[in-house]
């Protein structure tokens, strides 16, 4: 026994054990079953899983295991105080350039080859290393500060010593600890939810810090955990948790918990509270930490800024290699020259006698020359490029045009080193939804049971909104904004908004996701909420409670309608909250749970009435008498009056045989809904009385039919209304996707209101029936492979198990295809399917997003069987996802189609203009979307991707052979079309299936050839994987620069594959943003980003790199020419300090400024003339020819710069340094003035830096020549420059050299600019005109451009509206044009 005590003492965490605890520990250790330990050690060997037990455990083996997990202390810093220098050096030495220079520095210490004093030659590399080290240190320090802050946050951990929860810092949290959190606290580590103060064992978390999604997510206490009335007592927790090893998948968590009783229960994502999320809406939660610190999912996902290598840099590396070749050639020349020279010499007085052979000396000299000419390889270039890019990013981030007022967000640059790639994009791949469109889904129309409800009023309402927003500063926006600020203030709980940035220790350089406040009601702007119901549909729904309703056929339709809206309301994951407590979910009130249970007769009625199967439904309309139907209706009236509250009155009403009061009651339940819609819209500016008139009329008619209704309404409103009715309008729906929100709002417009949600129940208010509690059995969440989601509920009225499914029309249509017992119903269902399909096609043509709604009734046995297998899937740890998918697919069969919805997703502002600009810029725009073909074409048309002059090519085929044939045929057509006049381009539309074939190895060539000739390509029905394949194919096969832009998780792979990935931080979470290189908030920003910043960044960087090469070659060649006059001995005519500093100090700042600020054309002109972008696309600024031309110029300049002083001083008594002095000075002048010639803009900053550099050089050399008495042997500069600069000859030589050296380039520029100016130059010339001329010229340009493009078609530049004769218009386009005219833009 004593040994146990000591062991327990030793193993207790943080060694604060007291004797009291020891005794407790002994007790526990005695209690623990021995087998548990052995099994865990077995698992531990495998190490495929992680075992977590309570940290209070006494088991030494388990404690050891817990200790082996990393603690919650995060250090995102790379270095510690001690390790900084060695580690940073080590990292820097990974760069090739640095190794090269260290090698050179080391070489200089070898006596036979050394060129300078060893100390001097290490200066450049030290300087470069130091600059980089300082940068790294600064970055690291910032990280350290944020780490320290985060580690120091406080949370409550259960302490065994005090037997209670005590405050501890985050860094002291360990795996196995029990953490108690209260509302609005941030979760310190990934923990398993063990207890929630919520009676249902759920808690809500907000993951905005993690993924930017602001909607609440529900988490659930581990199932079957013995429910304790009070809080969970950590001492009594003896279960063992087995879960997977830490990974970065935020949406997956697998494992199981083994109770002491050996019972196992599966754990999944729903039980896990993730680090850096915030607890909402739940008073207290307790969890056990399973992953801590760097092993948390949040940290695993935090992979810092992205590093890509830009195209320009790849090109640059080639040229650096050329420089190396040049260097080797020069050194070889010198080495051979030296060898030959030595061989011809005999006894000399100036040679130091030694025994080395000329060949060996030549070999030594080779290395000496490498040291002397080292500057040829531009080391400082790499550092300079980094600095320039950082500044470019600074400018991009500070561009006020990228600021989005509504979201208060700027552009985020996540990749720091591909700015210039923005200027070379040739292909843009765009997502549609949320990228081109707003992703603000608004319910537009629907079809139920084969009947279309056009919702004309709704359409008109949408137009009103559109006009409002088109006006720019619409009051709608303003009022929205003010409402926003109001809601900010009304937030009761102080929302903590520690950004993801700080919590996960993000590296800086990226903005934290926008403050969550403005977005908290993201999917519920009035436009999305206020749906005007279709009068006919309302009428039909009203029939539920109207005595006039007698048509029997319609009654079946009515079941469809009710089910349809029921599905809209509940088949989702929408969380309901009320606005006064924005973060508080409206729960299902306990009281309203089972009001219907007691009313057996009503239940029976609905069972019959609401049966989905036509086998049973088709009979009633022949057998049922009108009387019985009326009775049924009356009874429904009863139901309605019962449900709102379980007060004693309904019972009384229900037992009353008379119909009258019931009717009144049912009208009553309709009223609030009717009231609500216009009431809320009152201030939103669509109070066109006429339009509302018809709707009102309907209402009046109805009321008129029930004269007693008004009084009844008033009465009962006072009596029993309040608890539920006023609330209905104020509910806030927080949905994961905007579609869901739109549908829930739509259902609400028809008074099928989702009123609350808890884990097991949904509260739905149905017209004429009041609030019903629906038991939620399962949610089968949406995934992209199934393209649908389902809920399994127990129907409140029929008490059957019903599956409601909603999903993409293609899949639902297929699933609804073969009802198994459908002999009789076939006709009916077939008819519905046929009609619905027709309507769907229409919707798509209108550009609406379509969703199909279906349901299925499960037999109890059927459900039991499924449930068993589903439970197995849920609890399994290995491949749970696959099993769940399979399970879902098993359930979603033989669906009954209820109807379909059409949702409008409006185009974002300026999308057509942006696309047009991109196309004019020579960028090919492809749209990759998961939507239907018709929708895609329609949107493409609306955003001017498809011009009316374009010829549309569609590729839909079912087999590979057909696909091949089609591709060839289309290609032939394109070739014919290219030969013929009249069409401006081709647009290819491919659907997903065809794309699959086309992407296969043997067809991709044909596909590319075809698509290359098309101006635009639209891929519809494509999966995320296909998107990335397409991007990859185009990028790799055509070797072009690609850009992918998208906003959703389905675009992530495409964004990652493309050369430049752009995320739109919009409505759909942050996954796209997290994986992107740049994140913008609107599609229109792409225009300025590419056309202006891309162009600038590219030309700036390209010019700067060329200039760097020029500068180095020019300077190094001076030293090389000297070798011909010093016996190739590696002598230099310059003081070694000046030589080293020449590149590092005297001429380093101007190119930087040049790379940061140079501006060839103004931003305005670049936007107005997108054609200018083409120069970057074709890499005009940095072609190999440009490189070699620059090299030649450098060679010429160095020749001039060397030989003019040479001839001027030849034969004179000039010593080496006096000879070098004018050479250096003129080289400096040439290099600086060369830049002036190359610069397109000179600001006062340029002047400052240029003059500063020159002054710096002259003052440095002067001072150096005065104070340096014995320093820097053998090139002691004492007196040299002082004397030289006092002589007129010096200035005479400098002036002549400078002029002669710069003459060719000066002349070349002047001639080229006069004789054949580039587009860029012409634009720059236009910039200098006065505004009037500028406008005139701009128009002229645009016209000529358009003419050359459209081959004679007249394009009015003013409104960019293309006027063309109608006969060219293909049929589809004409239609889509008409449709877009009315609906979209």
């Amino acid at each position: 026994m004593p040994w146990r005590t000591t062991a327990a003492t030793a193993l207790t965490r943080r060694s604060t054990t007291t004797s009291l605890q020891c005794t407790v520990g002994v007790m526990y250790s005695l209690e623990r079953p021995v087998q548990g330990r052995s099994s865990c050690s077995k698992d531990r060997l495998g190490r495929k899983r992680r075992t977590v037990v309570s940290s209070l455990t006494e088991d030494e083996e388990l404690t050891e295991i817990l200790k082996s997990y990393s603690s919650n202390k995060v250090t995102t810093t790379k270095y510690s105080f001690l390790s900084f220098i060695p580690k940073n050096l080590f990292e820097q030495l990974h760069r090739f350039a640095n190794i090269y220079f260290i090698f050179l520095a080391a070489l200089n210490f070898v006596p036979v080859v050394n060129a300078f004093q060893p100390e001097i030659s290490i200066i450049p590399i030290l300087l470069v290393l130091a600059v980089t080290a300082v940068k790294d240190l600064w970055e690291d320090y910032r990280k350290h500060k944020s780490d320290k802050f985060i580690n120091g946050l406080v949370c409550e951990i259960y302490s065994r010593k005090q037997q209670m929860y005590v405050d501890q810092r985050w860094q002291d949290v360990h795996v196995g600890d029990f953490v108690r959190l209260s509302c609005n606290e941030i979760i310190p580590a990934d923990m398993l939810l063990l207890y929630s103060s919520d009676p249902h064992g759920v808690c809500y978390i907000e993951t905005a810090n993690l993924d930017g999604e602001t909607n609440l997510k529900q988490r659930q206490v581990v199932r079957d955990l013995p429910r304790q009335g009070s809080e969970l007592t950590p001492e009594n927790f003896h279960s063992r948790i087995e879960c997977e090893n830490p990974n970065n998948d935020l949406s997956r968590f697998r494992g199981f918990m083994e109770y002491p009783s050996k019972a196992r229960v599966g754990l999944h994502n729903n039980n896990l509270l993730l680090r850096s999320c915030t607890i909402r809406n739940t008073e207290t939660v307790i969890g056990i930490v399973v992953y801590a610190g760097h092993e948390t999912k949040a940290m695993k996902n935090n992979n810092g800024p992205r590093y890509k290598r830009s195209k320009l840099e790849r090109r640059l590396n080639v040229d650096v290699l050329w420089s190396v070749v040049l260097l080797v050639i020069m050194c070889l020349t010198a080495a051979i020259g030296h060898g030959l020279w030595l061989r011809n010499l005999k006894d000399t007085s100036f040679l130091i006698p030694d025994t080395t052979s000329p060949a060996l000396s030549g070999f030594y000299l080779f290395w000496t020359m490498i040291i002397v000419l080292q500057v040829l390889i531009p080391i400082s270039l790499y550092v300079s490029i980094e600095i320039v890019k950082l500044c470019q990013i600074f400018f991009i981030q500070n561009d006020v045009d990228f600021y989005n007022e509504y979201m208060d967000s700027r552009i985020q640059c996540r990749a720091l080193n591909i700015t210039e790639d923005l200027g070379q994009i040739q292909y843009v791949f765009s997502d549609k939804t949320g990228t081109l469109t707003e992703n603000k889904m608004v319910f537009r129309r629907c079809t139920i049971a084969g009947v279309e409800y056009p919702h004309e009023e709704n359409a008109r309402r949408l137009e009103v909104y559109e006009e409002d927003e088109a006006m720019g500063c619409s009051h709608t926006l303003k009022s929205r904004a003010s409402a926003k600020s109001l809601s900010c203030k009304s937030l009761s709980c102080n929302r903590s908004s520690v950004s993801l940035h700080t919590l996960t220790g993000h590296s800086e350089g990226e903005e934290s996701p926008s403050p969550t406040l403005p977005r908290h009601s993201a999917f519920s702007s009035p436009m999305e909420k206020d749906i005007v119901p279709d009068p006919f549909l309302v009428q039909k729904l009203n029939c539920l409670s109207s005595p006039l309703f007698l048509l029997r056929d319609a009654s079946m339709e009515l079941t469809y309608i009710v089910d349809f809206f029921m599905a809209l309301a509940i088949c989702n994951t929408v969380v309901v909250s009320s606005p006064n407590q924005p973060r508080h979910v409206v729960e299902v009130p306990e009281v309203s749970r089972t009001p219907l249970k007691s009313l057996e007769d009503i239940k029976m009625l609905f069972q019959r009435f609401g049966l989905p199967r036509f086998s049973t439904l088709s009979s009633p309309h022949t057998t049922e008498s009108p009387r019985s139907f009326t009775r049924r209706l009356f009874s429904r009236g009863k139901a309605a009056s019962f449900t709102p509250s379980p007060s004693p009155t309904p019972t009384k009403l229900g037992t009353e045989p008379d119909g009258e009061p019931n009717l009144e009651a049912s009208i009553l339940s309709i009223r609030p809904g009717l009231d609500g819609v216009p009431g809320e819209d009152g201030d939103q500016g669509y109070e066109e009385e006429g339009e509302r008139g018809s709707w009102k009329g309907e209402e009046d008619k109805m009321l008129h039919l029930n004269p007693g209704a008004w009084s009844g309404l008033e009465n009962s409103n006072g009596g029993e209304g309040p608890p539920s009715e006023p609330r209905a309008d104020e509910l806030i729906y927080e949905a994961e996707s905007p579609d869901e929100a739109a549908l829930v709002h739509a259902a609400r417009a028809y008074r099928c209101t989702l009123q609350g949600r808890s884990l097991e129940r949904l509260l739905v208010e149905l017209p004429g029936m009041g609030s019903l509690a629906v038991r939620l059995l399962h949610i089968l969440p949406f995934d992209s492979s199934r393209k649908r989601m389902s809920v399994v509920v127990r129907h409140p009225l029929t008490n059957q198990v019903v599956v409601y499914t909603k999903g993409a029309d293609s899949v639902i249509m297929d699933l609804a295809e073969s009802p198994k017992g459908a002999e009789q119903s076939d006709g009916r269902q077939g008819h519905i399917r046929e009609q619905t399909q027709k309507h769907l096609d229409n919707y798509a043509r209108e550009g609406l997003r379509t969703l199909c709604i279906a349901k299925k009734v499960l037999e109890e046995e059927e459900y039991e069987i499924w449930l068993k297998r589903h439970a197995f899937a849920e609890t399994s740890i290995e491949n749970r996802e696959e099993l769940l998918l399979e399970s879902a697919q098993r359930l979603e069969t033989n669906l009954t189609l209820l109807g379909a919805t059409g949702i409008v997703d409006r185009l974002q502002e300026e999308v057509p203009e942006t696309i047009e600009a991109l196309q004019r810029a020579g960028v090919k725009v492809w749209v990759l979307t998961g939507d239907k073909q018709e929708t895609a074409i329609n949107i493409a048309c609306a955003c001017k991707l498809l011009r009316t002059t374009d010829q549309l090519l569609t590729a839909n085929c079912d087999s590979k052979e057909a696909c091949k044939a089609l591709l060839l045929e289309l290609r032939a057509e394109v070739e014919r079309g290219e030969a013929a006049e009249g069409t401006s381009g081709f647009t290819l539309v491919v659907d997903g299936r065809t794309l699959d074939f086309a992407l296969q190895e043997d067809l991709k060539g044909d596909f590319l050839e075809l698509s290359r000739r098309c101006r635009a390509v639209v891929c519809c029905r494509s999966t995320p994987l296909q998107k990335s394949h397409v991007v990859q194919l185009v990028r790799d096969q055509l070797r072009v620069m690609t850009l992918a832009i998208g906003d959703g998780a389905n675009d992530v792979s495409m964004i990652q594959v493309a050369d430049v990935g752009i995320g739109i931080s919009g409505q759909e979470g942050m996954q796209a943003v997290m994986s992107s290189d740049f994140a913008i908030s609107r599609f229109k920003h792409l225009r300025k980003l590419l056309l202006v910043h891309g162009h600038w960044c590219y030309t700036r960087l390209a010019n700067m790199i060329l200039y760097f090469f020029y500068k180095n070659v020019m300077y190094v060649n001076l030293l090389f020419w000297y070798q011909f006059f010093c016996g190739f001995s590696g002598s230099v005519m310059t003081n070694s300090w000046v030589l080293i500093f020449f590149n590092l100090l005297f001429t380093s700042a101007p190119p930087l400024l040049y790379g940061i600020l140079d501006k060839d054309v103004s931003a305005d002109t670049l936007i107005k003339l997108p054609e200018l972008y083409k120069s970057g696309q074709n890499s005009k600024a940095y072609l190999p020819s440009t490189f070699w031309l620059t090299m030649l110029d450098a060679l010429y300049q160095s020749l001039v710069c060397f030989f003019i002083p040479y001839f001027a001083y030849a034969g004179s008594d000039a010593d080496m340094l006096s000879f070098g002095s004018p050479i250096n000075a003129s080289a400096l002048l040439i290099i600086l003035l060369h830049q002036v010639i190359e610069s397109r803009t000179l600001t006062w900053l340029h002047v400052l830096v240029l003059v500063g550099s020159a002054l710096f050089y002259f003052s440095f050399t002067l001072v150096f020549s005065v104070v340096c008495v014995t320093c820097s042997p053998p090139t002691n500069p004492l007196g040299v420059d002082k004397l030289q600069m006092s002589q007129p000859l010096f200035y005479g030589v400098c002036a002549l050299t400078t002029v002669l050296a710069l003459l060719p380039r000066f002349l070349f520029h002047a001639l080229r600019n006069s004789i054949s100016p580039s587009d860029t130059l012409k634009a720059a010339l236009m910039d200098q005109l006065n505004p009037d001329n500028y406008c005139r010229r701009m128009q002229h340009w645009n016209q000529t451009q358009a003419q050359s493009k459209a081959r004679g078609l007249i394009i009015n530049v003013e409104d960019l509206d293309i006027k063309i004769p109608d006969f060219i218009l293909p049929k589809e386009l004409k239609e889509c044009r008409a449709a877009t005219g009315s609906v979209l833009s």
Partner: protein
Amino acid sequence: MMASSYNAKEDGHVTVPGGGTIQNKKPDNTAFKQQRLPAWQPILTAGTVLPAFFVIGLIFIPIGIGLYVTSNNIKEFEIDYTGTDMSSPCFNCSQSFSWNSTRPCTCALPFSLEQPFESNVFMYYGLSNFYQNHRRYVKSRDDSQLNGDTTSLMNPSKECEPYARNEKMPIAPCGAIANSMFNDTLDLYYIDPNGTRIQIPLMKKGIAWWTDKHVKFRNPGGNPNLTSAFQGTTKPINWRKPVYELDTDAENNGFINEDFIVWMRTAALPTFRKLYRIIQKKNNMTPTLPRGNYTLEVTYNYPVRSFEGRKRVILSTISWMGGKNPFLGIAYITVGSVCFFLGVVLLIIHHKYGSRNNTADIPN
């Protein structure tokens, strides 16, 4: 609650009681941040660069002419005394050579000046094919020793090897440069029309740079007695006498001997001249060197034949531009003319193309 306090202090956001922040992220709309700094946009076209060419032409041509005339006005006389030809008086001396020969070989070269040298005449010795700029040669010196540092005097720098020590004795001055110091003695005689030889007085002071003589080169210690100052050192191997016997004048002896200083300033190119003596103008009436016959008497010590070097003596006057060199003047004139010509060409081009740029017609 901890998070909101963080918000307030870390981000500098103004935290309103409700918890929201009212600072927005809108970038400053400043000229610099929006890249709208006022800028001068030089666009080089024929029209704009035209004036520059003419201006350069107009400035350069006169300068060139001035330089050319100046250079032409400089009187320069050069005589090669290497003695490679059999006919040369110094042939014999050049044939028999050893650094350490005790018997000096002398030769006399007669020459005549066609024109009188009016102002101060600078007398140079010139060497050809002598690579004083060879890297290892240039390095082979000890600046500290020459600056009078006594430790360096006794322990010459490694760079001086193999001329740092001779038989364990430190060499002063050490190194290859000093060791190979030019040691011919040149004397100039004017042959009077009467036939009498008049020795022309040669100034041997003021031939070195002031900074070199007074700052860079210093004798070791404060000891005026150079013999004791250089105690413990030995002469360079090729020298005939130690460094403290270079001259009798204490101001021109030891390391501060001007001939030595001039030699130590290594020439830039393998063909070079070094100032040997200055012949000062006596008065305004008589030219420094009148026209007539002269004799150059050479004490021939310095070997150059082994590496095919040449030795010359140059007599030259100088101008503000230095010695005689027509190159710069010609170059200026040429460049000026080319610029002027290009200016004309550009004018034509400007007339041909420039007008096109001014119309609204921009060709695509």
